[in-house]
């Protein structure tokens, strides 16, 4: 028995030692890793800005948006990016779904949590997120997989990029709305955490003297009219409140309703739609400057 326990202990210690060493090395790598951005205009947010705003059209811009990204993750990202670079302007995705409670489930929802943890482990500030359920078991599994096996040079999984396609599929608007505003059939409310972090992003921009522009790209009418009223009302209230603030500009084109052929699906623009929207956005930014 002693022989079994001793050998088991040695076996386990070697394995734990191997993982720990890699973890420590990777920890130092990602804590000191910088994100270099030479452009002055930063586009951040979720899939709406990822697909909807083409940085090449805006010029001197980079799109770091990622699918499904809630504001607390955007905040952590921006803290790092602002610290390491000189950014003049931030275009942030701001649409009704960005303030929906579904965003609070992304660190515990089976569909999203693995992907989110893979992106944020170098940046996470879970101790600040007291109102959100976090699947720590899944988090540590991801952390082990990302940092436990070998020293990795690149831990920047949180830098997104513009991505689109020319396809159009306007089927299933109800399913799309259900994914973003409902959980197991129950309508979700407003996410106070998202609102808090939106405020934090505002404050961060003020601190780093970054001009903040909140942008919502057009969605299809079949999706728009299914958005739950409480969320739409809150969104409109927020929009009005932000519009009064000098340091923020709001460009809301949610219900602009482009032709069907410009949509990738009921709430994302396709390549053609993104081109049109980016041109219009550029024009609007130029007019505002003047």
């Amino acid at each position, binding site marked *: 028995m002693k*022989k*079994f326990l001793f050998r088991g202990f040695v*076996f386990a210690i*070697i*394995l734990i030692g*191997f993982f720990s060493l890699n973890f420590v090395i990777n920890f130092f790598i990602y804590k000191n890793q910088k994100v270099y951005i030479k452009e002055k205009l930063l586009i951040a947010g979720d899939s709406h800005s990822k697909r909807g705003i083409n940085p090449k059209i805006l010029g001197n811009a980079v799109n770091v948006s990622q699918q499904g990204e809630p504001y607390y993750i955007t905040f952590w990202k921006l803290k790092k990016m602002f610290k390491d670079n000189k950014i003049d302007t931030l275009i942030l995705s701001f649409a009704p779904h960005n303030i929906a409670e579904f965003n609070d489930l992304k660190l515990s929802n089976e569909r999203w949590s693995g992907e989110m943890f893979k992106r944020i482990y170098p940046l996470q500030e879970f101790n600040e997120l007291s109102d959100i359920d976090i699947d720590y078991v899944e988090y540590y*599994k991801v952390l082990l*997989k990302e940092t*436990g*096996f070998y020293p990795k040079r690149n831990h920047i999984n949180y830098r997104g990029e513009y991505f689109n396609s020319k396809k159009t599929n306007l089927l299933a608007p109800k399913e799309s709305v259900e994914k973003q505003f409902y959980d197991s059939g129950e309508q979700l409310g407003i996410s106070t955490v998202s609102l808090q972090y939106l405020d934090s992003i505002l404050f961060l921009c003020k601190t780093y003297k970054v001009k903040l522009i909140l942008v919502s790209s057009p969605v299809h009418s079949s999706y728009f009219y299914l958005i739950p009223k409480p969320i739409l009302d809150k969104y409109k209230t927020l929009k009005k409140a932000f519009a009064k603030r000098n340091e923020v500009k709001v460009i809301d084109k949610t219900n602009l309703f482009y032709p069907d052929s410009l949509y990738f699906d009921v709430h994302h623009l396709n390549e053609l739609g993104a081109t049109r929207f980016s041109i219009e956005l550029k024009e609007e930014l130029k007019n505002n400057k003047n």
Partner: protein
Amino acid sequence: MLFNSIDFALFLPVVFILYWFVVNKNLRLQNLLIVLASYFFYGWWDWRFLALILFSTIVDFTIGKALKTEENHKKRKVLLWTSIIVNLGFLGFFKYYNFFIDNFITAFSFFGSEIKVDSLNIVLPVGISFYTFQTLSYTIDVYKRKLEPTTDFIAFSAFVSFFPQLVAGPIERATNLLPQFYKERKFDYTLAVAGARQILWGLFKKIVIADNCAEYANLIFNNSSDYSGSTLVLGAIFFTFQIYCDFSGYSDIAIGISRLFGFNLMQNFAFPYFSRDMAEFWRRWHMSLSTWFRDYLYIPLGGSRGRAWMKVRNTFIIFLVSGFWHGANWNFIIWGLLNALYFLPLLLFNVNRNNIDIIAKNKYLPSFKEIGLMLITFGLTVFAWIFFRAENVSHAIHYITDMLSSSLLNKPKVFPKVTLLLLLVFVLIEWFGREGQYAISDLGLKWKRPLRYGMYYAIIISIIWFAGKEQEFIYFQF
């Protein structure tokens, strides 16, 4: 709690330490610890299930004791049938009540009558199909005087509820497992190491192979109308490996854990996908259940003796009951029926015992004939598994029709290279380890320790790295 969960990872060492350090000097206490740990393990699923297993234990223990003293043949039969009715009654109610009600209503409506009988919201107790058969083996063997009934309630409770094999087998015979509870267990280093190795291999099969295959099997089966015939073939193959690795992986973990506690359970799988005919397949697949049916149903019915019509009848009964055991669903019955049709020609032409030894024994490679026979047997098995996995009979038929359409020659839409490569590596490991109890049972035993440890580390790292999305063990639903 699942074997591959954090809860179990905490539970097992605690029980292990208590078993070998606290209660090791006293056999009764060791058995009592097994009972308490097993009831805790079972109650973790749902505490309400405990009453059922306790009642079943008390009934069969009492009947066993009564059979010890009862000499009157008729009264002995009554006692036996009491045990059978109680055990199968519970199983029948929890598992089959709604099935019979629904089909009863359908049958009546076929004749133009509408009857209203409410189906019940019945929770199926985990493992009921397994432990009821296990306790039945006890009363039947005691009745047949093959086994001396026990007067030790603790030992008997431990036998019924033994946690490694409680919820998904192997279905142990009382003649094998119960006597192990009478003997003092001394820690055996070789047995414990063998157990740990088998647990590791079982986890690899379940987490790496089964869970990864499940992702694609589910994707393809749940959206089968969207895919070409070639993709549907892949879906069926993924399910074939999912169910094998899931179930045999669980059995390996169960057997491995038992070895850590000094117990030897029966082998449940013996590389069934390398079988050369369906008779061999059924000698290698879920052996604890197939031998149970053979010994307690097939042989009492006459087995393969007697006239041809009797052989046919007995074969159909066994396979249909086997299908029905898996679930209250026409899919499983058709799956059983298909297997009966596969098996019958071999039985009737008396070639069902042609392939007893493992294929290509003491050789590296099989002959071309053996490869051909393996592929045919594998193909028949994959075909039958479609019924097992499909939502219902109609889905299975559509799946097969779409699979065998002209799109069979199209390039598959779903072609996960990494999973397919893992499958290939797995099949090779199984092939080269096919003469052992499980694929890596003899692997590395003669190597130097650093190399052997390196092999274990490689398996552990691949389990963590290639872990598929966690899926429940398939056989828990039975």
